[in-house]
């Protein structure tokens, strides 16, 4: 990202990095008329993460109307918490629709990040203000210091050292490193750059195990990070996003290299971190493209052509595919050339 504005935000390129057709397809599958991003792989519920991804993709697709609709829904239905963060879970067939008022920090980060980008891209100061308020809340409510490292907790309730015996517990895939410079521009009083560095440090430590990959949920109660109680000790659906976020944040090969372990012959691997054994191959194109992009960045091998074509399966995979395509088109266009269908 060559061009960085005064707020630290990358300026939108002239052409959207997600094509109108791709975005139209995504919307048709996963965005309702009322601005609700529907997780079809998860009982059609909605969550702050999905709303955040929807807002981010709408900005990247330069679709203001859809952004407005998703933001209206997000604001009126989820942004009800007294601390200014979003309730994380929303179910259409339940009353009230919000069925868990706890927040999920990845959702809050994505929403704030997308709002900041929208405010900048479309010159709408009120969206920048809304982003700033969320980032201030994140700084006030969600930070924890663990052995000198400042980290973002996964949620307000249930993860701290006082709330569980093996706490604090973090989810490294909730750390969206590319947002850090944007947040720093919005709230200079909070050390977002340092936080991102500390998170990278803990991420590396958490990967020191049989698998060489961090578990999705990490207990930091002792010096050596370990899988958190009550969660499968695995590198799974959460953490497959980490190399994508690292790439998008411009991290170098030494930080990306460990994640090549998650790339299998025919997809991404869900790995038991205690044994290093693969538990499942994730074969949807949206997952495979992350491995292909990682491989390309590390070795120069182009991304196969079939993965470059967007054909959505599940909400999560489709979202990751568009974000990967956005990254490749923006920062690694050479990976998209010379790709051949497998």
């Amino acid at each position, binding site marked *: 990202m060559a061009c960085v504005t005064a707020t630290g935000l990358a300026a939108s390129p002239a052409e959207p990095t997600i094509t109108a057709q791709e975005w139209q397809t995504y919307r048709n599958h996963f965005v309702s*008329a*009322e*601005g609700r991003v529907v997780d079809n792989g998860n009982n059609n519920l909605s969550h702050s993460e999905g709303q955040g991804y929807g807002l981010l993709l709408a900005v990247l697709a330069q679709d*203001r*109307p*859809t*952004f*407005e*609709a*998703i*933001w*209206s*829904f997000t*604001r*009126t*239905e989820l*942004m*009800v*918490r*007294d601390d200014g963060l979003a*309730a994380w879970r929303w179910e259409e067939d339940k009353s*009230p*629709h*919000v069925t868990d*008022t706890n927040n999920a920090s990845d959702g809050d980060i994505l929403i704030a990040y997308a709002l900041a980008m929208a405010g900048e891209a479309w010159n709408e100061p009120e969206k920048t203000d809304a982003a700033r308020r969320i980032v201030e809340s994140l700084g006030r409510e969600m930070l924890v210091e663990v052995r000198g490292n400042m980290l973002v907790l996964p949620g307000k309730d249930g993860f701290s050292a006082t709330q569980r015996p093996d706490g604090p517990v973090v989810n490294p895939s909730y750390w969206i490193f590319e947002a850090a410079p944007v947040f720093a521009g919005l709230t200079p009083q909070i050390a977002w750059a340092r936080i991102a560095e500390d998170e990278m440090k803990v991420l590396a430590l958490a990967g020191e195990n049989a698998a060489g990959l961090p578990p999705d949920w990490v207990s930091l109660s002792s010096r050596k990070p370990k899988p958190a109680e009550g969660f499968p000790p695995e590198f799974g659906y959460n953490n497959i996003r980490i190399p994508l976020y690292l790439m998008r944040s411009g991290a170098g090969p030494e930080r990306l290299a460990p994640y090549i372990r998650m790339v299998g012959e025919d997809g991404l691997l869900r790995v038991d971190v205690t044994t290093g054994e693969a538990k499942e191959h994730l074969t949807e194109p949206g997952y495979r493209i992350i491995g292909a992009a990682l491989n390309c960045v590390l070795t120069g091998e182009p991304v196969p052509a079939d993965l470059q074509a967007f054909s959505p399966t599940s909400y999560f995979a489709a979202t990751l595919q568009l974000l990967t395509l956005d990254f490749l088109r923006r920062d690694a266009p050479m990976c998209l050339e010379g790709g051949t269908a497998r």
Partner: protein
Amino acid sequence: MKALLRLLVLAMLLGQASTATAQAPAASGETAAPAPTAQTGTPDETALRYFARQGDTKRVEAEIARLKALYPDWQPPANLLANDYTPDPAIEHIWELYGQGDFAGARAAIAAKQSADPAFTPSEDLLHSLDVGEAGVRLRNASDAAQYETVVSIAAQTPELLTCASVDNLWRVAEAFIKTDKTPRGLDAYKYILTNCTDPQIRLATVQKAMSLLPRADLDPLLALERPGPDGAGEFTPIRLDLARDAIAEVLTGKVGKASDADVSLLESSARQTKVPDDLRLLGWYALNQKKPADGRDWFEMATAADPGALSAHGLAVALLDLDRPGEAEQALAAYSGDSEELTSLYLTAASALLAQDPRPELKPEVLDRIVQETMAAHNAKAAQELGWYAYAFEQPQTAAQWFKLATTWDPQDEPSAYGLLVASDALKDTQTVREIKSQWSAKSARIANFGQATGKRSEITPTASPAEAPAPKVAVTSTPPPASARSSSRSCATFVSPGSLSASQALARGWCLMDLERPADAVANFARALESSAGQVRSDAAYGQALAYIRLGLPDYAMVAAAAAPLTQKRINELQIAIHTKAALAAYEIGDYKNALRALDERARYAPEQNDLLTLRAWSYYHLRRYREAQQIFAAVAATGYQDAVAGLDAAQTALRIQSERGF
């Protein structure tokens, strides 16, 4: 007026509203500063004309109200369907989405129109309307999610949400204040509604909302804002009744001791008029709680008339039991005993109390029958025990023993039932059972331990450990001859047979036979042989017989020893004590030992009252001891009954007294 309302809302949100300002909006006049959200310029009539063309009069009215609020000087066009107005279909579509509450869709449509036409600027009116619409949704969602600070903050920023037309928002704001410990401001919100909103349903619902969140004391200022309803009665009458019910229910749950007189009499007069069974019963329970069982009975009788059934019968029975009318209670519950465990238990309580009444009532067979049925079905030890005492009182010791036995089977730890079995078994001469009960219970029950011992104190037979719980049945303790059964084997015993050649029971029978022949000395030897028996009953009978024989021989001291040779029933102990002391008194008197004669009579008096013969003996003893005054009193009393022997004594005593006084003693 609208501006003024906004000011009041703002004041309310800032916690500055008082009843005075809320009640007297006119005092502030219409000169209040313009509301912060009031618009200037020309209103956007797109929506108004769109709704008019759709023929949607409800939305037209709402839109006129909305525009008037925003533009106080604006007047709606005379002809909303006039052709002089050419609307933009895209803007009409946006208003349509707004009208449907699809704010996201409206936002998207505005952005789409802006993208297509960069010159397009949505009207302030449209944007503001969307802001308010979204804020309303957000306020309700925050309220549902119990995020009360968000609720208050949205309300403060969007006072146009707080109107009588959207009273739900006001209710939610009031709740948010109360839930965040700002009750006075919550009350202000309710007062605002009751001062400004006229819809009777809304007003009633407002107080109901407040009731669910606030203690009674906080409701009074709201109830004070009551207005007369169409029928002239206060519009909150139903609520006041609810409050009265709640207040009374709180007493019943033990939260407070007493309801206010006003609440009680309000519900009373309503219940008398409406005959609502629940209210009648509530008042009945309250009366019982307040220790007014007669009132309670009256309410439950009214409830029974209005709604015969278990609920009414239950209360009525409790009231009747409180009034010590167990017969009526039993009757009231008879049909419902099996309905629930609670009713069964209550029925058996009533039945037990009925059986234990003093004097014992003669129950109709059908009543007794159903008590028996229910007792058997429930395996209720207490009722079985009462049936036992009941049978015992009507001189059916065999039946009594069976009931007591059943009671101890159902509840082996029940001392009163064990005691009942002891008494009945004793009456049946079942010494085996008597001994078993004594060995099992003596450590735990003093009265069982002491049963049958000559304690010198008249032993009272009471059915329960605590006489306060149930009155003691009258069990007569009288001196009776040995039971006929003991003598049934009597046969000729004139010829001498060595007692040692007889079995114990043969010797016992021969002993009684000899007693009948007035040969007590021979009887003593035969009773001695019978005392060697291993059967408790035989030994007991033998000891008794031997003691009687010694008494006939004029050897009361020997009789005492003989009586101690085996456990005797209390009845026999009493009998022997009386006989022994009578004999001792007569023997002492005959040898002129008047002091010992009196002592023996005093001993005897602890077991039985003195009849005229012994009273006369006592009086002569006093006479001989020169206690003339005491002698004279007794002679006089006995003579008054016509007992001739005492008349001479009275003369003698009076003469002695006269001589005494003449001599100046």
